[in-house]
C-alpha cells in the first residue's frame, strides 16, 4: 500500500519531468540546446497564475471538463505498478476500468473542444475521436492479450505473471511493447501521429482541442496530458520488470533505465520521422493492431 502511494506520488511528480526530458533530448538531437528539462514545471506554474479566459459560447462543459479529465487520468495512473509494487487501486478487472476511465477523460475533452463551437476545435475533436476508436483495440491487444492468456484481470497481476521461461514469450513481450509504444504515441499525440509543437491549427490534434483554454483550465489539461504520457511510459516499462529479479529496488532501477531509454527512443522517433497524413493514421494504427494479432497467433499456436 505504501509503495502504491509512493508510486502514484512518483507519477504525479515526475510526469512533467519526463515530457521535459523528451523535449530536451529531442532538442539535443536536432542540434539545439533546448529548454531545461524542468521547463514543464515552469509552464505549469505560469499557467496557475494566469487569468482564465473562456470562449463566449462555452458552457459548463468547458468548466468541468478539465477537472474530470485530470481526475480520471490520475485515477488511471493510480492503477499502474511502479517497480512492480502493488498500486493503490488494484482489483480483479481493473484493466477494463483503466481503459474506460481514460475513455471518460476523452469523452469530456472532446465535448469541451466542441463546446467552443469553433471549427478548429471541431477538427481536432473529430480526429481525436477517430484515432481513439482505433487506439482502443491496440490497448487490448497488448495488455489484454496477456490478461487473456494468464486469465488474470488485474494489471498488477498481469505484469507479475510474465515469465521468461520460453522464447515465444520473449518475442511476445517485445512485440507487445512495440505496439504499446505506438499506442503511447497515438494517445499522447506525439510524432508521427501528431506534432505537439506545431503552430498550424489545421494540422494539430490534441493541441487544437485545448486551443481556447487558458489559465487553470490549461494547467489541468497540460498536467493531465503529461501524466498520460507518463502512464504509457509506465505501461511500457512494466513489460521489462521480469528481466530483473522481482524485487522492489531492482524494479525501480529497471524503471528508471527503461524510462530513460524510452524517452530517448521517443526523441529519436520524433526527430527522424515527420507527421503522417491524417488519412494514413488509421492504417498506421491498424498496423499496430495487426502485429498484436500476429504475435497473439504465434503465442496461441506454438505451445
Amino acid at each position, binding site marked *: 500500500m505504501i509503495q502504491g502511494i509512493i508510486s502514484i506520488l512518483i507519477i504525479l511528480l515526475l510526469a512533467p519531468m519526463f515530457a521535459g526530458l523528451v523535449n530536451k533530448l529531442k532538442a539535443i538531437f536536432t542540434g539545439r540546446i533546448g529548454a531545461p528539462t524542468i521547463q514543464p514545471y515552469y509552464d505549469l506554474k505560469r499557467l496557475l497564475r*494566469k*487569468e*482564465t*479566459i473562456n*470562449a*463566449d*459560447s*462555452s458552457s*459548463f*462543459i468547458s468548466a*468541468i471538463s478539465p*477537472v*474530470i479529465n*485530470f*481526475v480520471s487520468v490520475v*485515477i488511471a495512473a493510480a492503477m499502474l505498478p511502479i517497480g512492480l509494487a502493488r498500486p493503490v*487501486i488494484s*482489483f*480483479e*478487472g481493473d484493466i*477494463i*476500468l483503466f*481503459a*474506460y*476511465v481514460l*475513455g*471518460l477523460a476523452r*469523452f469530456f475533452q472532446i*465535448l469541451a473542444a*466542441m*463546446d*467552443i*463551437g*469553433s*471549427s*478548429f*476545435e*471541431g477538427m481536432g*475533436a*473529430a*480526429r481525436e*475521436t*477517430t484515432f*481513439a*476508436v*482505433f487506439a*482502443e483495440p491496440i490497448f*487490448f491487444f497488448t495488455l*489484454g492479450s496477456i490478461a*487473456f*492468456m494468464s486469465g488474470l*484481470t488485474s494489471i498488477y497481476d498481469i505484469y507479475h505473471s510474465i515469465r521468461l521461461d520460453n522464447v515465444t514469450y520473449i518475442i511476445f513481450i517485445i512485440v507487445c511493447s512495440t505496439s504499446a509504444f505506438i499506442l503511447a504515441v497515438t494517445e499522447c499525440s506525439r510524432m508521427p501521429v501528431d506534432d505537439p509543437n506545431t503552430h498550424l491549427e489545421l494540422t494539430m490534434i490534441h493541441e487544437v482541442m485545448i*486551443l*481556447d483554454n487558458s*489559465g*487553470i*483550465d490549461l494547467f*489541468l489539461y497540460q498536467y493531465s496530458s503529461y501524466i498520460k504520457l507518463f502512464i504509457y511510459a509506465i505501461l511500457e516499462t512494466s513489460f521489462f520488470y521480469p528481466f530483473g529479479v522481482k524485487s522492489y529496488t531492482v524494479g525501480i532501477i529497471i524503471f528508471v533505465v527503461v524510462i530513460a531509454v524510452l524517452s530517448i527512443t521517443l526523441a529519436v522517433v520524433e526527430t527522424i520521422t515527420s507527421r503522417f497524413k491524417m488519412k494514413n493514421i*488509421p492504417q498506421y494504427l491498424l498496423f499496430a493492431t495487426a502485429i498484436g494479432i500476429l504475435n*497473439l497467433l504465434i503465442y496461441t499456436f506454438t505451445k
Partner: protein
Amino acid sequence: MNLFFFALAIQILPTIIIGFLPDNRKASVVTHFLLVAGLILGFSSSFNALVFSNTTQHNISIFGIPNSLFRFDALALYFLCIIQLVAIPISIYSYSYFKYYIERGKSVRSTLVFYTLLLVSTQLLVSANHSIVFLIFWEVMSISAYLGMIFEKEKKEVQTGSFYYFVMNHIVVYLLFVFFFLLHHQTKSWLFSDFHISPEAGKIFIISYALSLIAFGMKAGFMPFHFWLPRAHPIAPTVFSAFLSGIIIKTGIYGILRTFQFLNPTPEWLGWLVLAVSMISAIFGVWYALAQHDIKKLLAYHSVENIGIIGIGIGIGFIGSAYHSLPIQVLGFGGALLHTLNHAIFKSLLFIGSGVISQNLGTRNIELMGGLVHRGKYFVMLFLIGSIAISGIPPLNGFISEFIIYNGFFVTAKELKNYYPLVMLISAVGLAFVGGLAVACFTKINSIMFLGSERKEVKHFNISFYEYVSLGILAFLCVVIGFYPQPFIGIVNKVLNNGFVPVSSSSALLSINWFYISLIFGIIFLGVLFVYFWKRAIQNKYGRRTSAAWGCGYENVNPRMQYTASSFADELNEISKSVLVYHKNIKPSKKIFPAEASFESHSEDLVDNKFVLNGFRNFSSMISKIEFLSHTDIRYYISFILIILTIYGLIAFLWN
C-alpha cells in the same frame, strides 16, 4: 400476486373510462394518473415478489384464471420490474407529450387507449405461462404498438415505417406459431413450465432453436433482421418509440432467454453463432448510428448496438452451458440481464430527451440544432448522463454491465483453454471497439445538438415539469446503478439462480469486488468535486472572463461555420463506406469568387435498401408479369374447367 392483477386492472381502467370523457385534456389527465398509479402499484408488488420472497415461483389463481395460465418465476418478475420501472417515467413524460397535441386540438384519445393496451399487454406477456396466452398478448402488444405508431398517419414515412413494423411482426408470429407447435408436440403441453427439450431430440431441437432465434431475434432487432427498427422507431410518437426501444425489443431478449430455459444445454456452435451475430450487430449498429443525422433514427441504430451487446452476453452464456460451466453462464447471462435493464433505462431517457428536443424545435435533424445548452442547462446535463451511460463509460450503469460481460470473456478464456483465449480476446477487442465508436457517436450528437452556438434560430425551448421529472427519474437510476451496483447484481444473481443455472452455484457475479468499484467511483466523484472547487478558488484569485473564440485572425465568425455532424463523423464513415452505403454529393462552386455551393452526405441501410426493398420490388414486378391468368373472356373460364378436369382425371387414372 393478486396485487399485481389489481394494478393491471387499474391500468386497464382508462380504456373504459376514456370513452366517457369527451374532453381530451381530462381524458389524458385521468389516463396518465391511473397509469402511473397502477404502474407504481404493480412495480411495488412485482419488485417485492422478486426481491423479498425466496420462493422461486408465484402461481396465482385470481379472477378465476386457472393458475397455469400465468406464472411469476424470477425471470418473468425481473422483466416485469424492468417494464414497470421504465414505464413509470415514460408515462409521466407521455402526459406532457400529448398535452402538446391536445393544445393544438389533435384528438389523442385513441392513441392513449393504445398506449394503455400496450403497457398492459406487455406486462401480461412476460408473465404468461401458456403458449397461446403468450402469443395472444404478443400480438396485442405488437398491434397496439402499431396503432400507436400511426399517430401522424398522413406522413409518408410514417406509413412506410409502421408498415415495416407490421409485416415484421406478422412474420415473427408465424415463426412463433411453428416454434410453439414443435414444443407442444414434443412435450404434449402448452405450458412454459412443462417445456423442456434436450439436445437428444435432435432435429426438433435445432429447428425450434432456429425458429425461436430468428423470430425473437427479429423482434429484438439483431442484424440482419434489424432493418425495421430504424424505420419504425423514428416515426412513432416519442412515447411509443421510447417504449419500443426501451422495452418491446427486450421482449425478444426475454423470448430468447425463455427458449434457453426450454432447450438446454445449447450446442457450442450455437453460442458461437449468437456471439458472432451479436458482435456484428453491435459494431455495425453503432457504425450506422454514427452516419445518421436524424436523432431518433440514430438512437434506433443504437438500440441495435445495445441489443448486440446483450446478445454477446447471451452468446457467452450459451457457450458456458455447452461446457456446463457455471461461472461462464452466470457472467454471460448476468451481463445480458443487467444490460437489458440498463439499456431500458438510458435508452428511454435518451428517446424522451430527443422527443423533448424535436417537439420544441420541430425537427429531428441534428444538423439544424446547436447551442441548446444555453437554453436548458439541466436538461442537457440529464441527457449527458444518458449519453455517458450508453457509451459504457464509468461511473454510470452502462459500464457495469459491460464490465460483467468483459469478465465473462476473461472467465471463458480462463476456464476453457485451447483456442478460447484468442477468440475471447478478439471479442473483447470488438466490444472495446464498439465502446470507442459509441463514444464517437455520442460526443457527436451531444456536441452538435447542445454545444457551440445555434445553427438555426430557436423559437422556444421550454421543458415542462413532467419532462424534468421523468428524465430525472431515469437519470437517477443510471447514476444509482452505476455507483452502487451491488443490490442490482444481487437481484440478477437471484434471477439466474432460479431457472438458469443450478441454485448451488457460488456465483461468479458476486465474487467480483463490487464494493471496490463503487469505492473508486466515489473517489472519482469526490476528486472531481474537490478539484473543481480548488479550481474555482484559483479562478477567484486570478480572475476569469470570457471573450471571442480564437478565429485564427478571422473576425466575423458565424454559426454556420461550426463543425457539422457529418464532418465530425466523416473520417469514420469513409472507412466503412461500402457497408454503410455512405455517399456524399458535393457541388463546389465553379466560379473564382465564392458562389452557390452545396454538400450533403447520407447513409442508407444495406439490408433494407439492397435486399428487402429491392427484393420485394423485383418479386412483385415478376409476379405482376403473369398476364395469362388475368383475362376477361368467359370461354377461358370454361376451358379452365375442362383443363382442371382432365388434370384431376389423369391423377385419378394414375392413382394406385
